[in-house]
């Protein structure tokens, strides 16, 4: 009569097996290697590293493979691994003016010291499906100019800043780390930036877009976007000076925004900042727009739009948190639902009784 609809160990085990089977797909088709994902789905790897807060191409590629290409699931896998790693210190701040840039553009000046480089970009592709990719066959290597060995590539923002036209970046960083301490509000700008850097690209994209459509507009210009390799330096306590320990690819976006000035500050341009691992311009730009929008209060602007609402943005940007909580609705809730059934039935009975009573007294009249 009564069959308990409850999944036991066996059901879970079978589900896991089936998942692994589906991940592999048709055995007639060659299995993907992690190297292939790293090399040929490199922008997916970049996104997983950025939102997973862990710069490791091989692990990110593995996560993508394990997650069957579900990037949010891959980000979750990488984060859950990252959290178990020991921390041996904090690196020196990246100096992106030392970047070996592969791409660098500015939309505020026709020419900038160091020049503009398009680099590899989707920007001017015509979005026509390239059926040639269906066929196998090697592609010739793209010709490249000898790399510019000039060590410094000054940032456009720094040039504007010298003139006093653009506010300087904040001098101090902070030792705060969202992955070790809970978010407290109001948050400092470094914490906000960490939150945004880890935040979901789609969420930030939509919020950044909303500012452009008038929900907290901050009149942005792309001061500069650059992508390339920067050295990571670390100063071991016992050494007393910094040593280079790695080189990582990052995308940096310095957004220049109009600012009419406030009581204390003369009119000048202000900054929104975006930084992402790998090549991720959409993310870096969206992040820069939202960063600037979140500075509304600091710059004495009226904060009336969602993108300017620190608590709203920071509390909902994380896709691992959001994905988990949205999907927890799949878990059984039948106890709560039973409580609701009991009370809704009682409320309905009360209403019915009132109606009957009203009907009776009407009939009596």
């Amino acid at each position, binding site marked *: 009569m009564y069959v308990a609809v409850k999944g036991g160990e066996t059901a879970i085990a079978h589900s896991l097996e089936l998942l692994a089977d589906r991940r592999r797909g048709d055995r007639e088709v060659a299995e993907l290697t992690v190297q292939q994902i790293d090399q040929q789905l490199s922008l997916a790897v970049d996104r997983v590293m950025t939102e997973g807060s862990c710069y490791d191409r091989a692990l990110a590629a593995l996560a993508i493979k394990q997650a069957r290409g579900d990037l949010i699931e891959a980000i979750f896998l990488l984060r859950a691994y990252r959290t178990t790693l020991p921390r041996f210190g904090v690196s020196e701040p990246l100096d992106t003016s030392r970047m070996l840039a592969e791409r660098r553009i500015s939309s505020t000046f026709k020419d900038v010291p160091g020049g503009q480089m398009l680099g590899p970009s989707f920007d001017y592709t015509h979005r026509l499906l390239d059926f040639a990719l269906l066929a196998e066959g090697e592609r010739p290597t793209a010709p490249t100019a000898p790399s510019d060995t000039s060590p410094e590539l000054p940032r456009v923002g720094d040039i504007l800043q010298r003139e006093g036209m653009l506010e300087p970046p904040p001098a101090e960083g902070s030792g705060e780390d969202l*992955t070790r301490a*809970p978010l407290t509000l109001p948050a400092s700008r470094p914490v906000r930036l960490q939150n945004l850097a880890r935040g979901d690209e789609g969420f930030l994209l939509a919020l950044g877009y909303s500012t452009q459509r008038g929900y907290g507009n901050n009149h942005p210009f792309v001061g500069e976007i650059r992508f390339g390799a920067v050295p990571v330096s670390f100063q071991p306590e016992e050494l007393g000076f910094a040593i280079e320990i790695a080189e990582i690819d990052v995308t940096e976006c310095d957004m220049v925004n109009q600012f009419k000035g406030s009581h204390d500050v003369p009119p000048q341009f202000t900054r929104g900042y975006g930084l992402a691992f790998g090549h991720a311009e959409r993310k870096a730009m969206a992040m820069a727009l939202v960063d600037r929008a979140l500075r509304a209060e600091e710059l004495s602007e009226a904060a009336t739009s969602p993108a300017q609402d620190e608590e709203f943005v920071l509390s909902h940007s994380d896709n691992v948190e959001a994905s988990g*909580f949205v999907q927890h609705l799949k878990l059984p809730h039948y106890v709560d639902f039973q409580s609701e059934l009991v009370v809704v039935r009682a409320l309905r009975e009360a209403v019915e009784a009132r109606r009957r009573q009203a009907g009776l007294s009407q009939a009596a009249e």
Partner: protein
Amino acid sequence: MPDGAYNYAYLDEQTKRMIRRAILKAVAVPGYQVPFGGREMPLPYGWGTGGIQVTAAIIGHDDTLKVIDQGADDTTNAVSIRRFFARVANVATTTRTSEASIIQTRHRVPETPLSEGQILVFQVPIPEPLRMLEPRETETRTLHALAEYGVMQVSLYESVTRHGRIAKTYNYPVLVNGRYMMSPSPIPKFDNPKLDRNPALQLYGAGREKRIYAVPPYTSVKSLDFDDHPFEIETWSECCALCGSSESFLDEMIVDDSGKRLFVCSDTDYCEARRK
């Protein structure tokens, strides 16, 4: 999974220490939500990461763990969490309430009365009882500091005026030790009276929201109400179809296409013990 690659009970010792400090503070200030550096767990947020971190921080080789979801030991997520601890903490597990030293739960308090020395760990989705009335953390923090809970009383009053009774059924707000308003997590209000002066320690973990709070043994936990609308719990006219209990929380099941219903205990261990 190379289990040897992970520390005992998954979390590293520094993290456990940090969580234990938060727990101690929570016990010292009953009902107060202590922020803690919640970690990313290998299970999804919203699926018990807070409870899992609390359990991981307090569990040891001598413990016996029971995990329930909706009162049952064999619901999938309870099975999954129990499996997790059996794997990473190599701990003995049980389904018997009386045999467990730690009981991690979602949405229920066991029917069998708990005793001194036992710890009940709640999985909490939204730790802030005022959240649905005031979405801003910056505001609710101030309301707690000032013990300014009028907004909740008004909301219950509105329920009375609209429905003729307090229609809140689960996650029913309580006042702990006469000071802090607390969310009992989404347990049915049926379980609220069990929280009051319970001999066991109650720990509440909210992973996504990164908060821990606690109710120490024998602490007063009062469900909010009005003099003319006293707090009351759910009742059923049926009794359990399996064990005949008329005192336990009953789950309702639809057993055929015509909508025929059957009521059984939500607490599987309690029900089984009564049938023996």
